[in-house]
């Protein structure tokens, strides 16, 4: 590389070389897929550099859709960054598995205080070691338009029957009860858990984990049946309504509720700053049963195993695991940070953090996105089919179990 530099080769190659090889001993690169958070991250980096004047970190964000490809090919070609954001679960393993990431086990004391589920998201299953500092959790729940609810005299539902009654009222008032559509495949996964988590219940998830239940379990099938029943309160032609259109229906106030992820809130606020959003967990069958949300971790911060500055990289990761950063992250980006002890200024955010204490994991992402076919791929297709009236909840459960059984041992003997 230094030969390249002294020769001063063609501009393009030089620019690439410059981005890979630090000019001075303490220049580090930091890659991300959060293009929209660039200015915030630059602030965090300034915070860090104040205490570490000799270390300079350069933030570079790529388009989210192609980030995985870019990162893994760069790492495979020894052209990866010093520091990077990695995803969680299966997508994390495709980067951590080949040994590209620095092992963080017992190097960052603060990680011991993180929630177990957060650490699990960034732990390689084969060696049980953690390779990244988890940064945010997302919650699947129902968002509702407070003004619309108030105007129609309805309250956030406590039970499934309440929900159906609320929907009926809204529909009679000429408002779409739900804004959701099913034309965009991944939306079919979010609605299952935003609406069905409490019907499935914690017991189902524990049995699934223990290998004692499959997706043919009546509790899971019942959750799908409830979803199938509530679809009459989705907009006309919802099978043709894609993700942007349903966001629009909710943001514009044409619909009362949106079943989805907490990551939508920032977007809704941006589209319609006057929108007053409330949230509630998936309603259970009866009062007295747990009302659950479902939670997953977005990703984590990791260091390159081959970085020329392991010490500086580790320092930066320690900073990212600190309460100081966690607080700034929650304030600046409006996400629920997993760093213990972080206070949430926004009431909505702190409500979501509260709800997270009674939750199940976002099953397909957390447990079934390690191999092909991923649980998400099958579920999304099958739910899309069910919502179009071309499959029954039972058939969906059977198909899921059968397709995942091709590699998931506990399903094979059942």
């Amino acid at each position, binding site marked *: 590389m230094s030969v390249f530099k002294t020769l001063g080769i063609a501009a393009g190659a030089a620019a*690439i070389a410059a981005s890979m090889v630090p000019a001075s001993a303490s220049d580090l690169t930091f890659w991300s897929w959060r293009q929209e958070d660039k200015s915030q991250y630059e602030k965090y980096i300034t915070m860090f550099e104040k205490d570490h004047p000799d270390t300079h970190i350069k933030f570079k964000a790529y388009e989210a859709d192609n980030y995985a*490809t870019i990162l893994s090919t760069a790492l495979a070609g020894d052209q990866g960054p010093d520091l990077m954001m990695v995803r969680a679960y299966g997508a994390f393993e495709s980067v951590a598995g080949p040994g590209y990431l620095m092992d963080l086990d017992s190097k960052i004391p603060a990680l011991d205080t993180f929630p177990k589920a957060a650490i699990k998201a960034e732990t390689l299953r084969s060696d049980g070691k953690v390779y990244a500092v988890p940064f945010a959790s997302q919650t699947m729940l129902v968002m509702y338009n407070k003004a619309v609810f108030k105007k129609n005299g309805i309250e956030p539902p406590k039970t499934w029957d309440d929900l159906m009654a609320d929907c009926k009222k809204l529909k009679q008032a000429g408002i779409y009860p739900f804004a959701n559509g099913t034309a965009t495949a991944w939306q079919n996964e979010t609605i299952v858990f935003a609406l069905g988590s409490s019907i499935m219940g914690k017991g189902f998830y524990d049995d699934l984990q223990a290998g004692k239940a499959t997706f043919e379990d009546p509790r899971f099938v019942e959750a799908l049946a409830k979803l199938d029943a509530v679809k009459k309160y989705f907009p006309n032609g919802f099978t043709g309504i894609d993700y942007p259109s349903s966001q629009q229906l909710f943001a514009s106030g044409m619909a009362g509720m949106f079943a989805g992820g907490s990551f939508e809130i920032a977007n809704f606020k941006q589209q319609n700053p006057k929108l007053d959003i409330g949230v509630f967990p998936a309603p259970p069958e009866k009062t007295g049963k747990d009302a659950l949300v479902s939670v997953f971790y977005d990703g984590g911060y990791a260091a390159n195993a081959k970085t020329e500055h392991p010490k500086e990289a580790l320092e930066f990761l320690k900073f990212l695991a600190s309460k100081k950063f966690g607080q700034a992250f929650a304030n600046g980006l409006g996400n629920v940070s997993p760093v213990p002890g972080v206070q949430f200024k926004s009431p909505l955010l702190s409500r979501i953090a509260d709800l997270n204490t009674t939750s199940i994991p976002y099953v397909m992402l957390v447990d079934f996105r390690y191999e092909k076919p991923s649980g998400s791929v099958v579920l999304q297709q099958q739910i899309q089919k069910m919502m179009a009236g071309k499959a029954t909840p039972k058939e969906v459960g059977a198909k899921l179990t059968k397709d995942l059984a091709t590699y998931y041992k506990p399903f094979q003997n059942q």
Partner: protein
Amino acid sequence: MTAVDASRNAAARERSGLGVFTQDALLQIFLIANTFIMLFPILVMVLNGFKTNAEIFSSPFALPNFQNLSNFEAIATGTSFVRYLFNSVLVTGLSIGFILILGTMAAYAIARYAFRGSGLLLLFFIAGLTVPLKLAIIPLFILMRDLGLLDTQFSLICVYTAMGLPSTVFIMTGFIRTLPRDLEDAARMDGASEFKIMRSVILPLARPAMVIAAIQNLVPIWNDFFFPLVFIQTESLKTLPQGLTTFMGEYNTNWGVLFAGLTLAAAPITLVYIVLSRQFINGMTSGAVK
């Protein structure tokens, strides 16, 4: 259509009497209907660019207030549209430049010098016509990574040049072969170098074929979306079709702005096409009717 055609058709009409008029009327109605179907969606796209969301949803067929340019302003000020446009012009221009230079070089060698393997070489280029390069995207991606060209516009130019060469060599070889050799022989008599002969004798004569080759490559390269999708990440390097997808994602709920953006994105090539429609149609169909 030539004058001969016209007079022949007129003659045919006279001979077979009224039947032909009915036929002509039916065909004319068919053509008008077809043209309406072709143009109406484009017209609606343009008109919607001047409307607000509410206007599009409530009165889709009404004429807009053409003074309302706020959607277009949003694009000019809030997006990198101009940057995308510049990138597309740059990438397309350079690619076509390389295609013409390299294609003419190969075609000239094949058409004018009898060397061993020249037939095989032509076949090699023509075989390239049939390769769906999209399917080789994985190796191309890794190749670009290893060459350090990922996320640079040069990666696109390389691929487009390789994609455009086969048809260009094919067209140019055919054309140069039809040119008389007298001028070259005369120049050679005068002691001109081979390079000079190519540059000042052949190139001027081959210009019509070069225009055809350029237009044939212009549309697919200008409109390509697949290769930038995989190769280019940096916002400021994106081409127009790729930038359009980013922009469609950002403004996905403001239809007026979306239609305005689509209109602006369609405008450059549409205007060039309207001005040069004869050359476009000849260029794009000529490879096929050879």
